């Protein structure tokens, strides 16, 4: 009751603020359901930014990730991933709470405590072994859980595929991030840049082969990524526990 009375006004305010987003998002859902397309009114601009990102990936991120995989042994890379994940776990706890997912919040809190203490400051993911798997939550997903549609698809420079809703969520997560708050208070912005760089290489290093495959096999790489992104986000918002509106599979004769 206390939790509900605390969060309800906040949710209401947030809902009002997001009303414009919601209106934009509504147009998206019937289309996505039909499978015909995704709202992408900015497609020409998006394609240019996508091309730029792809070039930056080819020239910098992919080679850097390849070197990283070649040089750093598995246990080191695992530790890096665990550490980075542990750093953002407070945000995951907050988002689970805002989504009303108490079980998820409990698991994320358990992970934070277990990995920080037993996992030596987050270097070892002891929690996963103990049956508390990592699940990523962000404010974009929280907005989705609140019923706000994705809005138009946007490709952000360097950050990649997003949507009006998810970009808004990303801005909120960035501002709310405890590490960022700490870094600003202690004049240690270098830490943030270092984390962003290592995090990009860490994430990219896990999908080296997949992205190569995708590029080689796509007729329209941009459209493929757009489709994957929008489906993946919908799956993340569902958290695998609600039935999704599937496209129709008719009988052809």
């Amino acid at each position, binding site marked *: 009751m206390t939790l509900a009375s605390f969060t309800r006004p906040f949710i209401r305010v947030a809902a009002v603020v997001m009303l414009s987003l919601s209106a934009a998002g509504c147009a998206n859902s019937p289309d996505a359901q039909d499978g015909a397309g995704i709202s992408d009114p900015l497609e020409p601009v998006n394609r240019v930014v996508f091309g730029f990102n792809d070039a930056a990936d080819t020239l910098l991120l992919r080679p850097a990730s390849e070197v990283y995989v070649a040089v750093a042994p598995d246990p080191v890379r695992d530790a890096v991933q665990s550490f980075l994940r542990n750093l953002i776990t407070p945000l995951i706890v907050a988002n689970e709470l805002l989504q009303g997912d108490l079980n998820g919040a409990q698991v994320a809190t358990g992970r934070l405590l277990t990995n920080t203490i037993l996992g030596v400051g987050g270097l070892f993911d002891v929690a996963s072994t103990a049956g508390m798997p990592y699940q990523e939550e962000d404010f974009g997903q929280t907005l989705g859980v609140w019923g706000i549609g994705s809005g138009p698809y946007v490709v952000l420079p360097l950050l990649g595929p997003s949507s009006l809703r998810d970009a808004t969520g990303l801005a909120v997560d960035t501002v709310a991030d405890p590490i960022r708050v700490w870094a600003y208070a202690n004049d240690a912005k270098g830490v943030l840049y270092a984390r962003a760089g290592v995090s990009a290489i860490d994430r990219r290093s896990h999908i080296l082969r997949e992205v190569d495959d995708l590029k080689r*096999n796509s007729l329209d790489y941009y459209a493929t990524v757009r*489709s994957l992104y929008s*489906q993946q986000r919908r*799956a993340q918002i569902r958290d695998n526990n609600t039935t999704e509106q599937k496209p129709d599979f008719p009988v052809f004769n």
Partner: protein
Amino acid sequence: MLTRRHILLSSAMLAIGSMVPSAVFAQAADPGASAFIQKLGDETVATFANKGLSREQAVEKFRTLLYAGFDVPYIGRWVLGRYWNQASPAEQTEYQKLFERLIVDTYANRFVDYSGQTFKITGTRPEGDADTSVTTQILRQDGPPIGVDWRVRKGGSGYKIIDVAVEGVSMGLTQRQEFASVIQGGGGRVDALLQALRQKVGSRT
């Protein structure tokens, strides 16, 4: 307070009301579908665990398993979506041929490079009017398991897979949206897609 309780109550009734018919009419998931996926998966693992195969042999085996397990013509037609009816019969025939080659090209390599993944069936549920979704987990040595859902339909020639969803991402829908983008980029002509497909699969054989 009364009105609020009223709203709560009526929304609860609504929720129950909408659940009852689906519970009554929901068909049970077909156990045959799960047995079918188990058998197909076992065969696939056994085939590609054999590292003595040459590349050509492995691709040929893949093609055999693909047709045993998947309704490829159905998937091809579904992926083309509303553009299927815009295509001439000649275009439809060529499209299906190119689509099949694209599938083999895209997926054969992944099986040829098979490296010890196994799978386990974690559940089944009815899907749509007559289909069954078989949910599985692909177990890897080097990472967390991947959730894969197989949408199975029973037809004249037995069970066939008509869509695969990896972590909630449908392969069919991804291709449908990609193909639609290619066609729209080519001024709404199906021929634009055929051209792109010819270039893609033609350049590799």
